[in-house]
């Protein structure tokens, strides 16, 4: 084996990825070649030295950090998807509720303006219409009931997304 090959095996040895036959091959070469032996020993010594010479931080570091900790505010991820999701749901519900209560026609206006979301809108209108007809038929005060049910849905979604957030944070 030449010295170049021995060097490659040394690298594997320092990476702790050397196989037993290669280790034997390297040892045989090192015992025969003085300069490779010197180099291997020197590098081994260097890396051993580095491993054992992790510098000690000043003893008061914990104290320094803990003293300053109160002045540092932990950043909260306010733009978490659950917040955005809740805002969208809340906005839609409030808009629908106001529309229903004040007869402003927000959804009709939105329909005129946003033709590109017409399909989605139609679907939602159909759902809401079905929903409203159901309450018009079976309840005396549909608007109030709508608000109550909307609130319940919002609450349910909030809890669901909150639980999801907690799961993401604490179940790794």
């Amino acid at each position: 084996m030449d010295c170049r090959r021995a060097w490659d095996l040394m690298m594997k040895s320092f990476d702790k990825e050397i196989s037993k036959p290669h280790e034997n091959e390297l040892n045989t070469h090192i015992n025969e070649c003085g300069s490779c032996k010197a180099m291997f020993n020197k590098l081994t010594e260097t890396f051993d030295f580095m491993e054992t010479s992790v510098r000690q931080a000043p003893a008061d570091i914990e104290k320094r950090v803990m003293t300053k900790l109160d002045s540092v505010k932990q950043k909260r991820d306010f733009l978490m998807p659950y917040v955005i999701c809740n805002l969208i749901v809340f906005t839609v519900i409030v808009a629908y509720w106001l529309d229903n209560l004040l007869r402003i026609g927000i959804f009709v206006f939105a329909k005129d303006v946003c033709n590109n979301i017409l399909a989605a809108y139609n679907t939602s209108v159909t759902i809401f219409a079905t929903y409203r007809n159901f309450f018009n038929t079976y309840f005396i005060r549909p608007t109030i009931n709508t608000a109550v049910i909307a609130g319940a849905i919002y609450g349910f979604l909030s809890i669901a997304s909150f639980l999801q957030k907690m799961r993401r944070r604490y179940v790794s």
Partner: protein
Amino acid sequence: MEDIVLIKKCLNGQKDAFEFLVKKYKNLVYSIALNTLVNKNDAADVTQEVFLKAWANLSSYNPEFTFKTWIAKITVNHCINLNYKSRRITAWDDEEMEKLTTDEDDPEKAALDTERRNDIINAINSLPEKYRIIVQLYHQHSLSYEEICNITGYPMSIVKNRLYRARKMLAKSLTTYSEEAVNKGEKAWIADEPGI
């Protein structure tokens, strides 16, 4: 206690849990700070700043990686951003070397050890910074290739190449070959070659 448990406690506002993390990783952060860019006085400040930064951004910690990798990454980035390069003295100064001399009973051996350590330290200090960071993360802090990639943001090929070249440079500066061997070309491969 496991790091992840401590982190969860920290996120719940339990500051004393963070003290355990500081205690556990302060030497790592301090060593990286001292080795990479800063002098000894600045390293303590950097250590403090890194932990405060970690506390502030703990909610963005990804449990996929170990806390050790995460805090090391913050430290390396923090040191680079500080641009303390010009203020750096050496990775090991005389005071540190005195502390590392172990054999107090045998002064002759201790002197020899000191001399050998001197050579090693000079060889490490003479490495260009981009190589020294990699070799220290790998050999001093026992981080894996993958962890070094995560910390430095370099691809695996660059990390491997730099470590390979750093070892070659160390070998070159620590070992003296006979003129004959070099002339014959037996050790010609140890000479520098273009690296990344």
